[in-house]
């Protein structure tokens, strides 16, 4: 029973945040993308019940909201890691060997080919078409920091550094 209450409390707290975001954007469907961006910034993904809630609040169908949420690459319907590692696979990075960088990142995080988020929800690995730092190819972006001129070794070092920094981090993150 206690667990139930807790769950409901969290849910209502969640919607409170969503309500503030909705208010900031005048509950207008024309701001749907910005609204989803802010929600995702908060939750790190778009939970299904929130999508439905947003649809009701904006007076559009859930299918419409779902359609927008699945159209754009930035949105995720699955929980994402605390840190997002974006390996650039733009043309410049591609011809300078971005595939090896991606391989190194995934191996170092212990991810299989078809996995993108670590089980401790600390890291999500994505590829992006171009982060615009082509001069430093191959590159990757960890959150908003850009790392360039990567090779296998350097990539592994950077990832190890991130893992080290986040040791025991998820416990803290949950408590945050």
């Amino acid at each position: 029973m206690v667990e139930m209450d807790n769950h409901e409390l969290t849910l209502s707290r969640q919607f409170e945040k969503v309500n503030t975001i909705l208010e900031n954007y005048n509950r207008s469907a024309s701001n749907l993308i910005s609204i989803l961006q802010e929600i995702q910034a908060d939750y790190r993904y778009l939970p299904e019940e929130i999508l439905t809630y947003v649809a009701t609040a904006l007076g559009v169908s859930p299918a419409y909201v779902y359609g927008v949420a699945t159209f754009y690459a930035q949105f995720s319907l699955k929980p994402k890691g605390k840190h997002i590692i974006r390996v650039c696979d733009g043309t410049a990075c591609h011809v300078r060997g971005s595939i090896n960088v991606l391989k190194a990142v995934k191996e170092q995080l212990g991810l299989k080919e078809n996995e993108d988020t670590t089980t401790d929800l600390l890291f999500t690995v994505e590829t992006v078409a171009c982060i615009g730092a082509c001069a430093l190819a191959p590159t990757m972006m960890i959150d908003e920091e850009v790392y360039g001129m990567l090779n296998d070794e350097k990539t592994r070092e950077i990832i190890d550094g991130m893992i080290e920094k986040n040791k025991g981090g998820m416990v803290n993150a949950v408590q945050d």
Partner: protein
Amino acid sequence: MPYRTKEELETHIQQLKNQPISTQVLVCAGLGCLAKGAETVYQRFRELTEINHLQVKVNKSDDHHPSLVGTGCMGLCESGPLVRIEPKGILYLRVKLEDVDRIVDQTLKNGNVVEDLIYQEKTDHEVRKWPLMKDIPFYRKQIKIVLRNCGNIDPEKLDDYLKRDGYLALAKVVTTMSPDDVIGEILKSGLRGRGGGGFPTGRKWQFARLAKTDKKYMICNGDEGDPGAFMDRSVMEGDPHTVIEGMAIAGYAIGAQEGYIYVRAEYPLAVKRLKKAILDARDAGFLGSNLFGSSFSFDLKIKEGAGAFVCGEETALIASIEGKRGMPNPRPPFPANKGLWGYPTVINNVETLANVPAIILNGASWFRSFGTVTSPGTKTFALSGKIRNTGLAEVPMGITLRELIFDVGGGIQNDRKFKAVQIGGPSGGCLTEQHLSLTVDYDSLCAAGAIMGSGGLVTMDEETCIVELARYFLHFTQNESCGKCVPCREGTKHMLNILQKIVDGRAKTEDLDLLIETAQVVRDASLCGLGKTAPNPVLTTLRYFKDEYLDHVLNQVCVAHVCQAMKQYRIDPEKCRACGKCARVCPVKCISGRPKVPYVIDQELCIKCGSCFETCPFDAVMVNWRSKNHE
């Protein structure tokens, strides 16, 4: 303090210009240099100048002493972090934290050049050095109109922009010109859309001006999605006010009061700097109501994209601003007649808008003195790939590809052989050595099957496989196809399948014909620019590198040694000690052997994963690339 009249602004700019010219340290804070540690270099300069009592007041451009400025991109990103000492114009490259002390001691205090940090080129006989930025070959052929402020000002300081006649063009337009005068001037200048299409900017404005509605919109397209292109990012990050000024002028010309800057989600620094610039411009009265005491009001909002390449297309971009899926609509109606929320809308690219203030201040004939008759002005290019001087360059239209790649770009890295250049990103085409004397302008590139595009220029050497590259581009466009029209959605998918077959060595000659046929249908029947141009990389490479395709199909040969299916792992019987490690790691169990007898790989079953190669303790596993004469 808002500037209420043009005269107030002019007086302030004059005051800024009258300040004595003093030594300045400009640290490039473009994305490239930041990623290489420009921030720590900047901080170190700050500490050292304070310790040495060089009377530096950091972050204040009104100070009369040597000052320190974090600027936008200086262009030579490959050699970052870059530091320039003004007014002498000395450029230091690859400045590391520990070099800062020497620069302060030798250059700032004693006026000497730190020899080992300047640009140099080694040839067989000599080492040539260029201490001054303007003499370096990379900069010598460049003409900076769009990038006139990039790398020279602190993008986060309004006064830095004003000092270089910032917002004077807007003041001139609002107080002394009619909207038709403005459009006339832009028409006369011959400015064409820099986003790739090359449509005359003045004509676009004219269409929107003629529309009679109470509301119109001005949009800046900063959704630079082409992989391998970063010109617009550099302008938005390095000189955000010029974008704002260009938009306000365009708004005045077409009669719009509201504008949007649509920036892609992958550019957080550009968003941050634009946001600050908009706030500053509003405070100074360059945005808001009744600009310079006139009846003209204009304000801006930023819309962040959410990661969809197709949103670079005008009608898709509008849909995205309206909060919908970013899918294109058939044109006509053109946005200039019926755009955002159904109102007339002009969409201009970042680079196009950055040209506008310069044209207004200097006049159309000045602009026409650069470039060619049909393509006046300059074009910025993001040089990347296997080129030596990776970075951002602005050259006059009409320059040859050879000059651009070899003089400005410095040629191919590690003195390898030039193979091809991809111009215009995934919508563009691959050009070869025979095109190097082609001039860079809208019409001659089009004739060669490529397009100007937004300005990505990816150079390739003999280690790049052209077929794999075509597959890469198709993979990109196929992935980004929005799915609305059948030719693009299904056609790109099938093209990708065929290309994958070729790369995997499973294709037959008929597949090449089918590939060409499908490509033509996709090109002719797709709804928007994405689909219409997606076949370009395939069609141009098939035209200019047919042999390489045939090599893959007929002989399973990849001359660039890229396509994994074309390689073979073999075990050297001399070196093999029959330990069996390779057979144990092989995921498809295609290695067999017995104790004391060398192991053998079954080529039919091998998936070329390379596990045996990595595992063998005796280096007995060899990689063989099939060549034309062999087998």
